């Protein structure tokens, strides 16, 4: 069973639908007692970093997630969910993140249009089980105005380029992040989610 963390921030049904389409079961819940019995967790989310962290705090999920990660369980952050995994964000202020991945979240400073919205290609940094069967150059769907600046290049599996090169897929231990939306990224997104499910169940 995959637990999709419901902290009232964005659309969770699509992640649930994508997992169902792969033949796996998931449960959308804000409840620690439900989530703790899952095989792996997904932290989705869209919107502002400040709201995301506040919502996790209000539901008393931060200590639970700290413990979950310390015990080496699998956690996948998607979009804002990935950004929350880092140390801190400079989105309209300075906000502390969950700190599972060393690095900060910065706004795109570019001549290009912001948000970075649409299909962009993946650039490989290193091999990992999470990207089995996925080639460099495959496209995934992004919608974001902020990006992660990683402290350790070894945490980055795929980069993407938009004015600058930024992490698209990260992994440190069993904490994984995807800046794009795998649940909206057609066949490539489906393979990535399938890899995560196979790794964790």
């Amino acid at each position, binding site marked *: 069973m995959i637990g999709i963390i419901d902290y009232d921030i964005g659309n969770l049904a699509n992640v649930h639908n994508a997992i169902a389409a792969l033949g796996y079961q998931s449960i959308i819940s804000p409840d620690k007692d439900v989530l703790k019995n899952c095989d792996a967790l997904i932290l989705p989310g869209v919107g502002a970093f400040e709201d995301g962290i506040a919502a996790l705090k209000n539901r008393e999920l931060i200590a639970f997630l700290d413990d979950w990660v310390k015990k080496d369980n699998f956690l996948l952050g998607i979009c804002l969910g990935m950004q929350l995994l880092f140390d801190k964000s400079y989105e309209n202020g300075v906000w502390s993140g969950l700190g599972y991945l060393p690095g900060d979240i910065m706004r795109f400073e570019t001549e290009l249009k912001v948000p970075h919205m649409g299909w962009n290609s993946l650039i490989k940094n290193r091999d990992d089980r999470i990207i089995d069967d996925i080639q460099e150059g495959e496209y995934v769907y*992004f919608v974001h105005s902020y990006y992660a600046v990683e402290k350790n290049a070894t945490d980055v599996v795929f980069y993407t380029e938009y004015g600058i090169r930024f992490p698209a897929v990260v992994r440190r231990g069993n904490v994984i992040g995807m800046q794009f939306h795998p649940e*909206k990224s057609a066949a490539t997104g*489906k393979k990535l989610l399938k890899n995560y499910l196979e790794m964790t169940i």
Partner: protein
Amino acid sequence: MLTKRIIPCLDVRDGRVVKGTKFKDIKDVDDPVRLAKRYSDEGADELVFYDITASYEERDIFLNIVERVAQHVNIPFTIGGGIRTVDDFRKILLAGADKVSINSAAVTNPDVITDAAKRFGSQCVVLSIDAKENAAGTFDVFIKGGRENTSIDAVEWAKRGQELGAGEICMNSMDTDGVKDGFNIKLLKALDEVLTIPVIASGGAGTMQHFADAFLRGNADAALAASVFHYDEIPIMQLKRFLQEQNIEMRL
């Protein structure tokens, strides 16, 4: 590199996809979920559905379609038509849509753009504008399905929409809509000069070259079309290959 996007548009009435010309002469085309899945399989980058159902009771039928599309399609999709309030946004997003497009109601109540952007994020707020060229050579915003001229300047309105919090502008040129004579390049160029958010070109697609013009001359980020796809006049994959040959970045 970020690709340009090809977006089939599906007008839905009474649970069916229909197509009209210049907002008139409506013809039945297909089942929305079946057609959406087909376009997704054929390489569409995104989909847009407009609810052109007249009566309020039938809104629930449409929400059910949104849910079914979300279950069967794994590319982003936008819902528009009859959106008035932040609660309309909420219902559609909860049903599984990625973005909501607002048109007439934003003209009468611009605050709804800001409220929706604050609540759900700019990325899901698309400001859709129906525009028509006037005698002075600028463009007027029309509302109520193209029936009423507001005399508001379309380019100014798009800019204001960006300031209010819209994440994307969908510009439908009424002069070119349904006549397959090409997208309105003049209008797209004017938008490109003032906007920093993505622009979807809409209205006028007839040939593959029209799409190339929208991207290369109009600098649009995405191009939307209906009938050329519904009636198989332009297969999506063939179009994307054609565009890539002209050095336009495409997801193939």
